[in-house]
């Protein structure tokens, strides 16, 4: 059934299918780009990215795609993946200063105000932040619950404070939220706390009296951080919610909870786009230490199912021998990339854990894994290519132009392969040499990355 297929298949699978189609074509027509973007639109909506945000996103990618001559690029599929991914990271706010750190650099006590809908995870997150500040930054933290609406909400925070070995403001029955906030700040000043975390009642953004109240609490406590806590399972309503809170109070950041669920987390993109505020922290589990800084790259990869390309690139840089790479770079500048160099690249690929190891870092891996399990084609291919190269003479590897039909037959016999396989390898080498010549100016860094990725047709290149 189509519905079920759609439902439980990951976005990763979706995009892998799209790009698989793109990859199989030699060239990419404008219709192909539009078709891919249509699928991306549907995939993003099914990942719960809010519709207005999806529209902006798709339009921006289309604009970039046209501007950057995607249709003429060597591997159009790679280009589209890269544009989609990069734009997603940019929208999620992957700037270098966007590290997810809380800015508590004020005269103590620094107030942290937690706001959000009912059931988004404010109270648990408040305790997690307190624990983090106590453990990692040795801060003295006071937790105070302003939630006088939900039965036993104040007891919940007090219990959590005990669990993390921290302090909570004594509960005074009948006290109103603004008064509690003031008392918490007074206590914080008097008793020398570094940070006072104010947990508030969950409220609907259309509840006028409660939205007025939260603004009053904000005025009273003058928080250094005002964090909107959002459930990553949230659907299209994320735009309304984000807009309403951002309009009424001066938010400084977003905390995304339940990221350990299997929702694709489209709400992250919606919230970031609508509020313009950075996503600072991720709730990654029920335990009180399950709080992590936000990484735009990782969330983008999660939404797109891209795998951790960053770590692949890092691994490639680690593994490649620096001097070797420099030698290769000089050679390439002169346009002298030969089959010996290809053999070295293949050896490096094996050193990185073979195709299997590398595939774990690459987009669409869920899809590829199935095929890998059935037939170990890719590993075999690497070995066969190595065999082909070692069956060549030194002169042939230096000058591939020597490889006429009879030499190719000899190599096929010698390596236990076939002539078409050899032809494919030579074609791969030629594509690679052409590409390397083009990017010779990128220098060693670029080389290390592109050298690897050029061996892997269909994988995105990164700058």
């Amino acid at each position: 059934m189509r519905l079920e297929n759609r439902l439980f298949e990951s976005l990763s699978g979706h995009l892998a299918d799209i790009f698989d189609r793109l990859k199989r074509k030699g060239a990419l027509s404008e219709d192909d780009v539009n078709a891919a973007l249509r699928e991306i639109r549907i995939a993003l909506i099914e990942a719960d990215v809010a519709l207005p945000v999806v529209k902006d996103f798709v339009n921006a990618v289309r604009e970039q795609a046209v501007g950057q001559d995607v249709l003429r690029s060597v591997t159009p599929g790679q280009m589209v993946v890269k544009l989609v991914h990069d734009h997603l990271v940019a929208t999620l706010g992957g700037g270098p200063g966007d590290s997810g750190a809380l800015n508590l650099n004020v005269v103590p006590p620094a107030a942290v105000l937690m706001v959000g809908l009912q059931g988004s995870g404010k109270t648990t997150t408040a305790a997690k932040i307190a624990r983090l500040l106590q453990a990692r930054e040795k801060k003295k933290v006071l937790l105070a619950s302003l939630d006088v609406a939900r039965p036993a909400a104040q007891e919940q925070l007090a219990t959590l404070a005990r669990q993390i070995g921290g302090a909570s403001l004594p509960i005074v029955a009948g006290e109103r939220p603004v008064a509690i906030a003031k008392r918490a700040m007074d206590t914080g000043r008097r008793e020398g706390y570094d940070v006072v975390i104010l947990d508030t009642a969950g409220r609907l953004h259309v509840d006028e009296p409660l939205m007025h109240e939260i603004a009053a609490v904000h005025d009273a406590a003058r928080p250094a951080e005002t964090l909107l806590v959002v459930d990553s399972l949230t659907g299209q309503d994320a735009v309304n919610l984000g807009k309403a809170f951002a309009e009424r109070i001066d938010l400084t950041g977003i905390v995304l909870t339940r990221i350990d669920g299997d929702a694709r987390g489209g709400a992250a993109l919606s919230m970031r786009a609508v509020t313009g505020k950075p996503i600072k922290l991720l709730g990654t589990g029920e335990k009180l230490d399950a709080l992590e800084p936000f990484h735009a790259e990782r969330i983008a990869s999660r939404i797109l199912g891209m795998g951790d390309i960053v770590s692949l690139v890092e691994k490639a840089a680690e593994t490649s021998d620096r001097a070797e790479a420099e030698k290769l770079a000089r050679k390439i500048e002169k346009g002298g990339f030969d089959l010996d160099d290809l053999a070295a690249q293949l050896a490096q690929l094996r050193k990185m854990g073979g195709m299997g190891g590398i595939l774990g870092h690459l987009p669409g891996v869920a899809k590829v894994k199935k095929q890998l399990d059935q037939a170990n084609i890719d590993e075999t291919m690497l070995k066969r290519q190595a065999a082909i190269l070692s069956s060549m003479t030194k002169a042939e590897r230096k000058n591939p132009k020597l490889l006429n039909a009879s030499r190719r037959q000899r190599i096929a016999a010698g390596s236990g392969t076939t002539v078409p396989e050899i032809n494919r390898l030579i074609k791969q080498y030629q594509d690679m040499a052409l590409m390397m010549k083009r990017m010779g100016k990128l220098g060693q860094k670029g080389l290390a990355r592109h050298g690897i990725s050029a061996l892997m047709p269909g994988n995105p290149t990164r700058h």
Partner: protein
Amino acid sequence: MTNGFFARLKAGLARSSRNLTDGIAGVLTRRRLDDAALDALEETLIAADLGTRLAAQVVERLRQERFDKEATEAEIRGVLAEEIARTLTPAEAPLAIDDDHAARPFVVLVVGVNGGGKTTTIGKLAKRFKGEGRSVMLAAGDTFRAAATEQLTIWGERVGARVIAGPAGGDAAGLAFDALAAAKKDKADVLLIDTAGRLHNKANLMAELEKIVRVLKKADPAAPHAVLLVLDATVGQNAQAQAQAFGDMVGVTGLVMTKLDGTAKGGVLVAIAEAFKLPVHFIGIGEGADDLRPFAAKDFARSLVGLESPEG
């Protein structure tokens, strides 16, 4: 169905339908139902969390019947509501409590992801059943979340229901078993069992939930007589995965959708009702004890598209 009821439901849903209504009004400034108008209509439905497939389906029907015709606002809304209600009507079924059940109590297990509103829903259900003249007992089966037991205990005091609770961090299945024994002894008509919220992709937590069901069956093979999955209206398409996982693990028999008093439209309910053939028993439209309403497909559909009271 009284006017008073509809007024309350409509008040609760008014905000839900506002954006959808605005969207439709925008569609209708074009007067003629052409491709652009239908596209806009489809987007409006998507923004209501209906999902891409259902939105396309509804719009396709409009296209076949009315394409290029001039349509009034009321007509469009009517067709939309009809189409949504058509899918939802089979899901319109009250939670039938079998009072003649030989072995009382009627056991209701309440499950769902964290923060969906399980405990509040139990408080409201207890109020409702008490109001219908039944004796109700509550089991504080959420032994994980801090002060969850206290929260349910306060609800028990509010509505006058006995609450069976255990130590924090205790075994939820054992507690459920004890609560069932106590409810039998007290000859309670209904036992409502709260559970800790859990994400449906956590295998160990789902296994714990399954254990509660297994243990209950030792005391009464027919228990639990109902398993209610609580869904938050703000949830997106992931609700379908939740319905699937909880259904597979503990045999969900019905749904409650909470927090419909916000701007979230809860459109994913349509897809769930269709795909899983599950009844929707109640909707939550506020934090008060009375803010739980029986689900009415036509009202829901008409309110969702911004129409006035149902005819008849």
